[in-house]
């Protein structure tokens, strides 16, 4: 089924050109209080932000709260975004992921996570918008990159990033000695990064 939603305008070719530069520009404008730029940023990124929150939390209502909090933080802290230190989408998703993980860990105490575990394999409705088509191209690249990982590396990275588990918990889940999972997560990320051709970001 297809979801009706506005398809974001194509990035303006006069400024930056790439979608990544466009998002960075929107964030910069948002830091000066440009609400229209922020709305555009939301439209271009919300399906990824919300999708990630749903994946980690496995609960749409909580994912909505986390997504809303994240965008509000993103708005308030937009001036801290530094394009020389990473992309806008990575900056945004780092905020979303951190909030989702913090929430899933605090929810653990009340046992919610176990109850929600059955939703893990929740099917995602197929989306036919232009944005989804672009995303699926990227998704294809990511699937190819994931194939470069050993099964064990992939399990460790997925449990940590998408499952929201600590490396110590990942070690226990995978019957690894404590301290091994962190190495596996790092090795997996290195392989994936190199397969995707993500350059190391220059740091001041």
């Amino acid at each position, binding site marked *: 089924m297809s979801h009706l939603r506005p398809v974001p305008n194509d990035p303006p070719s006069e400024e930056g050109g790439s979608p990544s530069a466009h998002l960075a520009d929107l964030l910069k404008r948002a830091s000066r209080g440009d609400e229209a730029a922020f709305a555009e940023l939301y439209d271009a990124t919300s399906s990824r932000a919300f999708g990630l929150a749903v994946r980690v939390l496995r609960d749409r209502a909580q994912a909505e709260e986390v997504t809303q909090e994240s965008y509000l933080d993103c708005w308030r802290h937009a001036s801290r975004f530094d394009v020389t230190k990473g992309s806008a989408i990575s900056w945004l998703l780092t905020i979303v992921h951190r909030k989702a993980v913090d929430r899933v860990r605090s929810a653990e105490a009340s046992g919610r996570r176990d109850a929600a575990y059955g939703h893990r394999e929740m099917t995602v409705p197929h989306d036919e918008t232009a944005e989804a088509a672009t995303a699926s191209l990227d998704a294809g690249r990511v699937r190819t990159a994931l194939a470069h990982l050993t099964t064990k590396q992939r399990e460790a990275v997925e449990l940590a990033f998408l499952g929201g588990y600590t490396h110590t918990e990942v070690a226990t889940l995978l019957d690894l000695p404590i301290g091994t999972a962190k190495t596996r997560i790092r090795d997996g990320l290195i392989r994936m990064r190199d397969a995707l051709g993500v350059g*190391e970001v220059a740091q001041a």
Partner: protein
Amino acid sequence: MSDIHALSGAYAVDALDDAERTQFEQHLSVCPECRAEVASFRETAALMSDLEAGEEPPASLRASVLAGISQVRPFPPETPETPETPQVASAAHRTSVVTLRRRMLPTLVAAAAVVLLALGTFAWHPWQQGGGTSLADQIRQAPDAVSVTEPVPGGGKLTIIRSASLKRAVLIGSHVPAAKAGTTYQMWLQQPGQGMVSAGLMPDAEKPTVLTGDAATARAAAVSVEPEAGSATPTGPVIALFPLKSGASGNGAA
């Protein structure tokens, strides 16, 4: 020594517990290689989340977000910091104070037993060290925050602020001379039965630095001068020592 670097992957995907996270962030402040690696991992993870895209948020969320931002002004950018204070410490002076202070440690070890509580979970922002609702600010603003200030032998003073309910403490220096080249300030918490346990490095004493470890169970906190890479136990001069009362009961009494 390279062990801390191995945490970069787990840090980038938020797979560290709070204590490890604080420790690694202190390492990040002095390790450009790890900063670059973490940034590259975050870009990778962002691409990985493409696999999860396609889950459309409801239109009501867009309306809430846009209504929310219209109520608040974005924070101003961070402005450049002032240069470091020149090194003026007198080593001789420090050493004499240290000898005295070291003698106090066994007394502190014998302090009353405290209740151990599990570490809480903190929601704070990955991209900032200060401002906003950083952990340092959360501690400072906690209703049960208690501060103690000690003069530093070489000049200036150090203040520790502890929140028993958050179980964490933050150190802030004022006019404390920068550590000499090749050395750094290192923070310590004296834990029951364990003696002085490293609570992380404090490369810049003028910046609020959160101590790693449970500050509610600790009986004392200290700052010493150590080789740049840090030490497993205090080896250099102790420039400040803060006796801490048992705060693990979590009462909010001021």
